[in-house]
C-alpha cells in the first residue's frame, strides 16, 4: 500500500518535472523557429538594392527600402534626443533628490505609462501634433516614440543609481562636494554602465514599434520632404508590405524583417553581454 503510494508520488514527480522542462524547450524553440524562418526567407530576399533603392511598384526589379531605413533612423534618433535626457534627469530626481509622496507618485505613473498600449500613445501624438500641423510628420512619430522611451529610461536610471553604494555618496560629501557635484562626478559615473544598458534597450524597444507610427509619421514611398512631412519607417513598411497581395512585396517585407530583427538583437545582445556583464537588468 505505502510502496504503491510512493511509486505514484515519484512518478508524478518525474512526469511534472519533465513537463516543466518540455515547456521551457517549447518557449526557447519558438525563438529559434522565428529567427530561423526570418533568416531563411529574409536572406534570399535581401540584396544591395534593399539598402540603396526606393520601394518600387510590384513587378519592377531592384526595389529597396533605403528611405525607410533613413526614415527610421531620423524618427528614432529624434525620439532618443527628446526621451533620453528627460528620462535620465527624471530618474536622477527619483533616486537622489526625494523619496516621498511626489517621487512615488511619479514612479507609479511612469510604470503605468510604460504599460499603456503603444497605439494609445500614438493617439496622443496625433492629437497634439498631427491635428495642429495639419500633416503627418516624422516629428509626430518621434514624439510618440519618446513618450514611450521616457518612462523606460526613468525607471532604469533610477534603478541603477539606487544600486550605487551609499558610502560613495557619503565619501563625496565628506570631501566637501556639493550635492549636484556629487551626483555628476560620483554617483552617475558609478551607475553609468547600467544606465547605458537601459538606454540601449529602450531605444531597441522603440525602434521596432509600428503601431504609434501608423497615424503620426504615416509612410512614404519616396524620400521624405524633411521632418515636417510624412516619413517612411522600417516597421511600418514591413506592415504595409506584408498585408499587400503581392509576392514581390512579401519578399521585401521578409528582407526588412530580417534587417529590423538584426538591429534589435544586436542592440539587446551587446547591451546585455558586453556592456552589462554582471549587472542584472531589470525589465520594464
Amino acid at each position, binding site marked *: 500500500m505505502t510502496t504503491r503510494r510512493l511509486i505514484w508520488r515519484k512518478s508524478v514527480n518525474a512526469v511534472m518535472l519533465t513537463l516543466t522542462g518540455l515547456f521551457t524547450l517549447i*518557449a526557447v524553440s519558438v*525563438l529559434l523557429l*522565428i529567427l530561423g524562418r526570418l533568416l531563411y526567407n529574409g536572406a534570399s530576399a535581401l540584396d544591395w538594392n534593399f539598402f540603396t533603392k526606393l520601394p518600387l511598384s510590384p513587378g519592377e526589379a531592384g526595389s529597396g527600402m533605403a528611405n525607410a531605413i533613413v526614415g527610421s533612423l531620423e524618427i528614432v534618433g529624434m525620439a532618443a534626443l527628446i526621451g533620453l535626457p528627460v528620462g535620465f534627469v*527624471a530618474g536622477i530626481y527619483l533616486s537622489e533628490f526625494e523619496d516621498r509622496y511626489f517621487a512615488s507618485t511619479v514612479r507609479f505613473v511612469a510604470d503605468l505609462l510604460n*504599460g499603456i*498600449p503603444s497605439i494609445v500613445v500614438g493617439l496622443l501624438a496625433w492629437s497634439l501634433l498631427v491635428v495642429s500641423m495639419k500633416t503627418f510628420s516624422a516629428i509626430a512619430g518621434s514624439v510618440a516614440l519618446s513618450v514611450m522611451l521616457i518612462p523606460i529610461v526613468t525607471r532604469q536610471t533610477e534603478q541603477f543609481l539606487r544600486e550605487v553604494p551609499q558610502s560613495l555618496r557619503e565619501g563625496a560629501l565628506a570631501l566637501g562636494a556639493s550635492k549636484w557635484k556629487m551626483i555628476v562626478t560620483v554617483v552617475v559615473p558609478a551607475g553609468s554602465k547600467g544606465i547605458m544598458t537601459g538606454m540601449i534597450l529602450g531605444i531597441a524597444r522603440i525602434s521596432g514599434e509600428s503601431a504609434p507610427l501608423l497615424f503620426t509619421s504615416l509612410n512614404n514611398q519616396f524620400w521624405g520632404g524633411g521632418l515636417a512631412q510624412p516619413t517612411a519607417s522600417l*516597421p511600418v513598411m514591413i*506592415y504595409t508590405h506584408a498585408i499587400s497581395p503581392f509576392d514581390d512585396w512579401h519578399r521585401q517585407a521578409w528582407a526588412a524583417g530580417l534587417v*529590423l530583427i538584426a538591429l534589435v538583437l544586436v542592440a539587446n545582445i551587446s547591451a546585455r553581454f558586453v556592456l552589462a556583464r554582471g549587472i542584472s537588468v531589470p525589465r520594464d
Partner: protein
Amino acid sequence: MATVAAVPASATGRRVQTGDAIARWVALAFAASILVLAALLVHELWAGSAGARHKFGWGFLTSSKWNPVTEEFGALPFIYGTVVTSFLALIVSVPLGLGAAIFLSELAPARMSSALTFLIELLAAIPSVIYGLLAIFTLVPLMRSTVEPFLKRSLGYLPLFKGVAYGVDYLTAALVLAVMTIPFVISVSRESLLAVPREQREAALALGATHWESTWQVVVPYAKLGILGSVFLGLARALGETMAVTMVIGNDPSIHASLLAPGYTIAAVIANEFTEATGKVYLGALVELGLVLFCLTIVINGVARLLIAATTRKGSKRA
C-alpha cells in the same frame, strides 16, 4: 535613497546651496514632466472623444453596430474580440509560462537557467510587427489547412468550432498573443519563485516531500501573488497588442460565437481605420475606443504592479 545631510552653511556654502537648489528644481521639472505627459494623455483622449461620448453616451459600450456610413458606432464587437483573444491567449501562455518558470528557478543549474532566461528575454524583445509577419505567412496557412479542419472534424459539434476555416480569426490571433505573452509570464514568475526563501524548500524536502511536491505545494503558493502579477502583466500586454493581432484577426466588426470566425480588437480597429476616418463622429468614436483600451490596461497594469511589488521585495535564492 535616504537623503544625505546637507553641507553646512558657510561663506562658500551659500553658493553651493544655490547650485544644489537649481539642480533640484531642474530635476524636479523633468520628473514632473512624466506626470504632465500622463495628464495630457488623459486630457487628449477625453477631449478627442467628446463628440462621440455626447452622441452615444454609455450606449457606446453596449452597442454592436459599427457603420461609418450612417455614423452609428458601438464598441461591443471590439471589446468582445479584445477580451476573448486575450483570455484565450492566457489559457495557453500561463500554464506554459509557469511550467517554464518552475524549470528555470527550481530545476535548471544556475548557468543554464540564466542562459535560457536570456533567450526568453530576447523573445520579448522581438517587435510586434515581426510576430505579425511570421503569423501571416506561417501560422495562418497552417491553421487554415491543418489545425482548423482538424478541430472542426473532432469538435465541430461545439458552437466554438463552427463555420469556415479562414485561418484569420480569434483563434489564430489568440495563439499569436499567447506566444507574445509567454516571455512576460516566465520572467516575472521566475523572479517571484526565486524570491521564495530557501528554507521553505528545505523544510518541505526534509518532511519527505518529493521535489515536485515541495515546488507545487510550498514554493508556488508562497510566490502566488507574484505569479498572479505576471498573469495580469501578460493580460495587459495582450489587451493592448496591436500589429500582430491586426494582421491575423480578420477585421470583421461583428460578434461571433465561433473561434474560427474573423473578428476585430480595439487596437486593431484603431490601427486600421484611423487614417481613413472622416468626420468628427467617426474619429471621436475611434479615440473613444482608445480611451476604453486605456482604462482597461491602466486597471490591469495597476493590479499587476501592486501584486509584483508585494512579492519581489526580497530575494534569497538568486540564480
